[in-house]
């Protein structure tokens, strides 16, 4: 059994005291990040990357720390959904639909426990799925040439633009903008500078951490200032937390089904956790029918989106690790981390750096148990943290962003650029242009252009080479369908109107 041998290798790394310590710290920070409204998984992980870098962690440790934060944030998002009726992060939006009514009916503790267990089931199954599916997919990915990679990148942008946004033109523009930012700097093939305007800072291109922190963290602060700090206050008192075994038992089937739905949604490049929780909730709602009472605070309505959300979070790691194409906004941020650490995700990762991949998978399994303990018996700690007022939290986020970027490059230019991206992110979010495709474009731009140009070199400029293999044709069809289909489905599947992740 290959998998068991690999897993043994993974656990031998993950069970070292230091790695274990990082996983616990990551889970704790992650749950806080997820729980605090105004600090979602994408911007939370984004502002932590420069700090991890300056800590001088090696690749495995940094990855373990930040993926624990990522998993933790997915758990934590539900806490404020249930207690405040404000989603702590975007995928937790669906949890407000039944979580808040249940808390209002006097059962906040039960709602937190059910959702915690559902999160565990979803994340655990997804990690198993990741373990089984990722090596298989990485074997397929070996057959990918430049033409297939180009089509794959296109698929990621199309599904991200199609499924995860309200307006195709705006999403497509966001992707193009990101790709255009990636063309700034020296041309990989010829070594000539492009679009630098003679500015020496821009010769190396735009460091992707600068727009990342600007678009996610700085713009969030501006949004809050506009909202005049409607201070969140706990409207619901949390008394003793007990475990409602009967409700958990009854909604177990829901958790399993939702995990499968969520995982599939997560594996789709570009779709992500928000779609996972949405699809899981909608499918359980239709299975339960009118009598299910979804929307009034039923256990299954809490279990479904949380299992789906956490399972999609795990699923989104599959394309990120095997193909280098992230499945969601936050995995795009994790991809940025890998690139900062000089690790190229893709099929070769599994053969060249097995210790990184399997150490990560083992750490995720451990993180899940840590998170279950933190989020069920110890959930009260995080409820207290929710009381941190935005007027302390957001200046803190801002200062951490500045110091993080400053410590990386030490240049004013990058700080100004980050502020500029912050203002741009604010305007874009007001106008409804999604910011995740911009980040994805900046991250993948160089690879996408290189793949296209290598394909053209191989075929001596023959365009039909792009459609020459069955895999490439399949990817093109999926990309076009993923972009166009939502135009017709949108009236049927009405999404709640907040899209950040």
């Amino acid at each position, binding site marked *: 059994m290959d998998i068991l041998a690999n897993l043994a290798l993974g656990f031998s790394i993950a069970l070292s005291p230091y790695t274990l310590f990082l996983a616990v710290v990551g889970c704790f920070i992650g749950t806080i990040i997820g729980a605090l409204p105004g600090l979602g998984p994408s911007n939370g992980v984004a502002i932590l990357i420069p700090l991890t870098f300056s800590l001088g962690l090696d690749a495995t440790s940094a990855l373990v720390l930040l993926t624990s934060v990522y998993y933790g944030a997915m758990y934590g998002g539900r806490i404020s959904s249930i207690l405040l009726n404000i989603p702590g992060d975007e995928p937790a939006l669906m949890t407000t639909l039944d979580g808040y009514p249940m808390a209002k009916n006097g059962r906040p503790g039960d709602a937190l426990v059910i959702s915690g267990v559902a999160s565990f089931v979803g994340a655990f199954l997804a990690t198993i799925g990741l373990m089984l599916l990722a090596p298989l997919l990485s074997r397929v990915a070996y057959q990918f040439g430049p033409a297939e990679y180009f089509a794959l990148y296109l698929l990621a942008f199309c599904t991200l633009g199609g499924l995860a946004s309200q307006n195709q033109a705006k999403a497509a523009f966001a992707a193009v903008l990101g790709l255009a930012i990636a063309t700034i700097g020296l*041309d990989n093939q010829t070594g000539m500078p492009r679009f630098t305007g003679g500015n020496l800072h821009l010769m190396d291109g735009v460091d992707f951490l600068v727009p990342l922190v600007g678009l996610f963290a700085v713009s969030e602060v501006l949004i809050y200032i506009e909202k005049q*700090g409607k201070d969140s206050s706990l409207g619901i008192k949390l008394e003793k937390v007990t475990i409602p075994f009967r409700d958990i038992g009854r909604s177990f089937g829901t958790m399993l089904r939702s995990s499968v739905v969520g995982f599939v949604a997560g594996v789709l490049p570009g779709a992500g956790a928000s779609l996972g929780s949405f699809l899981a909730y909608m499918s359980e709602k239709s299975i339960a029918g009118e009598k299910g009472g979804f929307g009034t605070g039923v256990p299954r309505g809490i279990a479904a989106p949380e299992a789906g959300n956490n399972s999609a979070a795990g699923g989104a790691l599959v394309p990120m690790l095997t193909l280098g194409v992230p499945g969601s906004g936050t995995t795009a941020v994790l991809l940025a981390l890998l690139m900062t650490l000089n690790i190229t995700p893709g099929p070769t990762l599994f053969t060249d750096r097995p210790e990184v991949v399997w150490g990560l998978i083992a750490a995720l399994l451990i993180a899940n148990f840590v998170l279950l303990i933190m989020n069920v018996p110890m959930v009260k700690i995080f409820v207290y943290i929710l009381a941190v007022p935005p007027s302390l939290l957001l200046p803190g986020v801002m*200062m951490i962003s500045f110091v993080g970027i400053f410590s990386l490059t030490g240049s*004013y230019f990058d700080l100004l650029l980050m502020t500029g991206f912050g203002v741009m992110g604010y305007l874009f979010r007001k*106008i409804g242009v999604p910011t995740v495709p911009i980040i994805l474009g900046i991250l993948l731009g160089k690879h996408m*252009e290189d793949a296209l140009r290598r394909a053209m070199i191989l075929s001596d400029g023959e365009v039909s080479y792009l459609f020459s293999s069955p895999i490439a044709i399949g990817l093109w069809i999926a990309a076009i369908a993923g972009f166009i289909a939502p135009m017709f489905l949108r009236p049927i599947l009405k999404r709640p109107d907040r899209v950040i992740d």
Partner: protein
Amino acid sequence: MLRSDRVFGLVVILAALAYIASALQLQTSFLSDPMGSKSFPIGLGVVAILCGLVMILRPDEETDWPGPVALIKIAISVVVMVVYAYSLKPFGFLIPTTLAAGLLSYLITPRIVFNVIAGVGLAVGLYLLFRYGLGLETLQAIPKSWRG
């Protein structure tokens, strides 16, 4: 009818035209591949123009822009960030951070005593965290030249 989306679409088209124009000016190298360094940027520009056209022809509902007070607050906070960026090196970490964090805190919820505490607390707390917790040695509490 003037809507934000239409204005934005127009800006997108103009920016894309400028981008294409500067792509056409790119120096080419004799070592070029069949596609060259211009085609990809030009393609991006064309897609952006199409997106801009769609935004002009089929705009979404009007954006809910903030009122003048909120706009002024946002403008002030952006100025605070720019000034903060420039003052980190000459004035050290503590003083600019206290002022910037306090001001931002005030802009979110104006409660003077709390804002002052938030500014000082964040500056000192984050300094200890970064300097000793994370070992960032480039960070200086106050500039070296001040210590005489």
